[in-house]
């Protein structure tokens, strides 16, 4: 998995406990620039928590996380974390759009207030992004007026507006019905084909098989097996992987 070029995301021996419950027990993996990594596994395995550690929302107890030039576990002040989040964007399962702003405003807000870019330029870029995710007609709609799939695509556009290096997707299709799942996955496919570094926590095995460069199976806070999709899905080496796959496939 590791290349001669330095990976853009490096996770080394991360441990995290909430109280007495150990959520992550020694997780290590790398992601190269432009790589697509899918993390699969049973619920409660700490997958979403791992994503939140990568963009600094949750502090870790032990280990190191490096994203581009940021040593995430060493970031203390808000200002440092904000600098990190200009490079790493996250899309959530529940979309988390800001309900009091229109779709276009949602996309424009962060570049204007955080990156302090020129509002006119931001607007142009936002309109282009909305078209990219196929929602050019819904610019002035409020999130409450959009369907789940549409909201999720706006959320993706919102994250893209920050021009991140890495995008994290936290089970983004779990709350959607099968037809809308396709809309969203197509949008992510586009991104991956354009060379965006993506780390996805997902249950969509077909998507992982089609698009991922590497699939990581976690269980009980540890990485059980990690391999390119063809290998992992067709010839799993570990028993636990086999058991999990037989249940979900």
């Amino acid at each position, binding site marked *: 998995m590791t290349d001669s070029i330095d990976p853009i995301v490096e996770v080394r021996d991360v441990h995290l406990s*909430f*109280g007495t*419950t150990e*959520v992550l027990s020694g997780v290590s993996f790398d992601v190269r620039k432009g790589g697509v990594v899918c993390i699969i596994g049973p*619920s*409660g*395995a*700490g*997958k*979403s*928590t791992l994503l939140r550690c990568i963009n600094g929302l949750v502090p870790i107890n032990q280990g190191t996380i490096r994203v581009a030039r940021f040593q995430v576990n060493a970031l203390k002040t808000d200002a440092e974390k904000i600098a990190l989040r200009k490079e790493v964007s996250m899309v959530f*399962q*529940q979309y988390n759009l800001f309900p009091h702003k229109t779709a276009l405003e949602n996309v424009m807000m962060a570049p204007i207030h955080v990156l302090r870019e020129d509002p006119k330029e931001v607007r142009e870029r936002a309109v282009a992004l909305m078209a990219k995710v196929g929602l050019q007609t819904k610019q002035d709609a409020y999130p409450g007026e959009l369907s789940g799939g549409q909201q999720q695509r706006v959320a993706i556009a919102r994250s893209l507006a920050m021009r991140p290096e890495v995008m994290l997707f936290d*089970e983004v299709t*779990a709350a959607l019905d099968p037809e809308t799942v396709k809309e969203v996955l197509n949008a992510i496919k586009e991104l991956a084909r354009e060379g965006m570094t993506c780390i996805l*926590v997902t249950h969509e095995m077909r998507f992982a098989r089609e698009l991922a460069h590497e699939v990581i199976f976690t269980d009980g806070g540890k990485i059980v097996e990690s391999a390119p999709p063809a290998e992992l899905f067709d010839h799993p080496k570990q028993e636990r992987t086999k058991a999990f796959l037989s249940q979900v496939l």
Partner: protein
Amino acid sequence: MNVLLPINLPKPAASAPWRLEVSHGVILAGLFVVGCGLAQAQVVPGQPSVLDTIAKWTPVLAKGFVFNLAISFVAMTIGTMAGFFLGAAQISLLAPVRGGAWLTMNFFRNAPWLVLLFYCMFLIPFQVTIFGKTIPIPDWTKATLGLALPVMANVAEVVRGAIQSIPTTQWEAASSLAFNRRQALWMIIIPQCIKRMLPPWMNLYAILTMSTVLASIVGVDEMMTQTQRALSAEARPGLLLAFYSYVLLWFFAYCYPIARWTVRLEARYAVRQ
């Protein structure tokens, strides 16, 4: 939501429930001592200390406070009983009854409590003759009735809200068991409402208790009037702060536990939609 985060996350300290503890009493007493200290600083040597003066007047003030509580109990009882009927009248099938009840409720809800008090003090006759017997109506009775009116209106609102929050399936079940509407209301619906009405009702009682001091403005002898008498008898400006803090403390000591208890009841009986 966050499916993958473990269920038993530690709660942040800011949302830990506040319990009435000894430390609260210590802080209160501390504030009182500071207040007295300030007052004591203004005392001319040769006069009795602030704490002595307060201790001297405490029995009188205590009797006044008990009278405030008595007014609150009577007003709450009358208001609650009337409020139940007014609340039930709001869901009557007869439009004039519904309309009349709604008007009455909003009339007494939107009027300031002090104005209603004045209303009753001036407009209720000082004696009434029933069946040849003349019954005098003392000032405190008029004040109690004056306080019972907004209580009635607020209880009606609480009752109406609680009745409307009971699902219609209950009414359907009752009528399919051949209960008539009145029986269904009083035997099935209202008993279920009692639990969910308890927190707002207790909140109302706390507000009412604090409003009993309004009676001092219309001339009823209760704790506030006694305090003002004590202050004018002592005629020392330094005592004003101490005495008013003292009165605040009495009411706080009575109402704060009720408020905490209400919060606990609210959490227990929260209506799960």
